[in-house]
């Protein structure tokens, strides 16, 4: 991708001014780190960090029949949501494969706010539009917002300084309010495993709110730390751990699939549940010393049988050892199974462990 087609968030110049190293990610020019990934990772685990998530997509869905329609498009059961609450969910193709994972919030009756992955905004929008009934409105508001993920045990103090007098919503909750003349949206969610919130403001006011979040005590963190933080928690990354060729059952995400309701792809999931899934996304941890595990590295059984290739991998800053996820034939997915990760021709011993890597 060349620089002409690469998109930048409204915070790009600010990132550069803060010393960020910028890299292409999902078509966007994003900060991978400021001072260092390990320091940023540890900041989120022990204090508070802020990530630019303006590249992520936001859809508004409203109109009579919106809930019934979305419930047929998504795996989780929307009827469980009350006003002001959100849930993690998946949108599948007819083969039961994952198009995207997302978080959907119920603002009111037949009124929803949906946050989707940056790389999937256009595809998600096209898929939804192709299935949308008359009377339901779908708006792609992705360019209207700057998003900031404020994550870490000190996030509540940061929010108290940022929006005095406003109470953070409960876990998975959403709050729409006005402050300093701006319409704001705060969601009590995150992608790090820490206490945190995701803050959406009008794009034109993004730099102002980003500066305020930093002034209130959050340290700017890049995508590098975001990746190591989410992988320690075994949170899936679409495009790496999720794909149109794998079902949520194979990805270990059956907890957000309600097979008692009808939605696109449900027949395949029911069949897999009855007959067994062909593969399973497992977590592996190094048991010996070796170079950090990375996407694409081959994984073998000790006898040399190839099990698959790593979807995601990193040297965990918190645990100090290599951690990774990959799809293996379901028969080999048992916790405790010993494997080798092949790094530049060398076999690094590892074993399948229970998810997540970091027990919190």
């Amino acid at each position, binding site marked *: 991708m060349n620089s002409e087609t690469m998109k930048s968030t409204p915070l790009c110049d600010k990132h550069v001014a803060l010393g960020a190293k910028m890299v292409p990610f999902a078509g966007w020019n994003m900060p991978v780190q400021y001072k260092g990934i390990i*320091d940023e990772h540890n900041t989120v685990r022990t204090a508070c960090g802020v990530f630019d998530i303006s590249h992520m997509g936001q859809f508004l869905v409203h109109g009579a029949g919106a809930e019934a329609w979305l419930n047929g498009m998504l795996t989780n059961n929307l009827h469980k949501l009350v006003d002001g609450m959100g849930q993690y969910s998946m949108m599948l193709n007819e083969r039961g494969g994952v198009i995207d994972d997302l978080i959907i919030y119920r603002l009111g009756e037949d009124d929803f706010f949906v946050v989707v992955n940056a790389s999937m905004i256009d595809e998600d929008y096209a898929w939804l539009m192709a299935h949308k009934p008359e009377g339901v409105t779908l708006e792609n508001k992705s360019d209207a917002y700057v998003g900031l993920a404020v994550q870490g045990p000190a996030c509540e103090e940061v929010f108290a300084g940022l929006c005095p007098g406003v109470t953070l919503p409960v876990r998975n909750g959403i709050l729409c309010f006005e402050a300093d003349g701006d319409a704001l949206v705060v969601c009590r969610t995150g992608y790090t495993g820490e206490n945190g919130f995701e803050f959406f403001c009008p794009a034109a006011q993004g730099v102002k709110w980003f500066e305020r979040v930093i002034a209130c005590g959050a340290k700017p963190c890049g995508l590098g730390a975001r*990746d190591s933080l989410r992988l320690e928690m075994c949170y899936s990354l679409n495009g790496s751990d999720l794909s149109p060729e794998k079902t949520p059952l194979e990805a270990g995400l059956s907890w957000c699939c309600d097979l008692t309701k009808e939605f696109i792809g449900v027949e395949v999931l029911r069949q897999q549940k009855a007959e067994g899934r062909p593969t399973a996304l497992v977590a592996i941890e190094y048991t010996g010393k070796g170079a950090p595990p990375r996407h694409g590295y081959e994984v073998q059984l000790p006898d040399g049988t190839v099990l698959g290739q790593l979807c995601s991998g990193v040297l965990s*800053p918190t645990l100090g050892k290599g951690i990774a996820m990959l799809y293996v034939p379901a028969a080999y997915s048992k916790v405790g199974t010993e494997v080798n990760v092949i790094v530049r021709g060398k076999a690094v011993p590892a074993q399948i462990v229970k998810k997540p890597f970091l027990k919190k």
Partner: protein
Amino acid sequence: MSTIPAEYKYSSEHEWVSPAVDGVVTVGISDHAQAELGDVVYVDLPTVGDVVAAGDNAAAVESVKAASDVYTPVSGEIVEVNEALDAEPGIVNSDANGAGWIFKVRLSDPSELDALMDAAAYEEFCK
């Protein structure tokens, strides 16, 4: 700003080579290279006794996000490797030009040093 010791020679792959002592040179990655890489979390060292040719992939330095090959700028036999990097790979960040050295080579062709950049040329190269 990165530091570029005047007494070293430099390769276009951002390795430095110390002046030869009894025919042996020390090789590391430049301060500029470590800054570009970010936090180094693992160094794959060569094996003592390996015979390498200039341009060979002799080692690897890995940060959280990327693996970066280290090419030996000179030919010869690997006579020593920096085992301290096994336990503390971060030394490559904190002292790339000194304690963060990676391996030592007994030169088979000392004239190869003449083909490398001097500090002034390397500084220009990094711009």
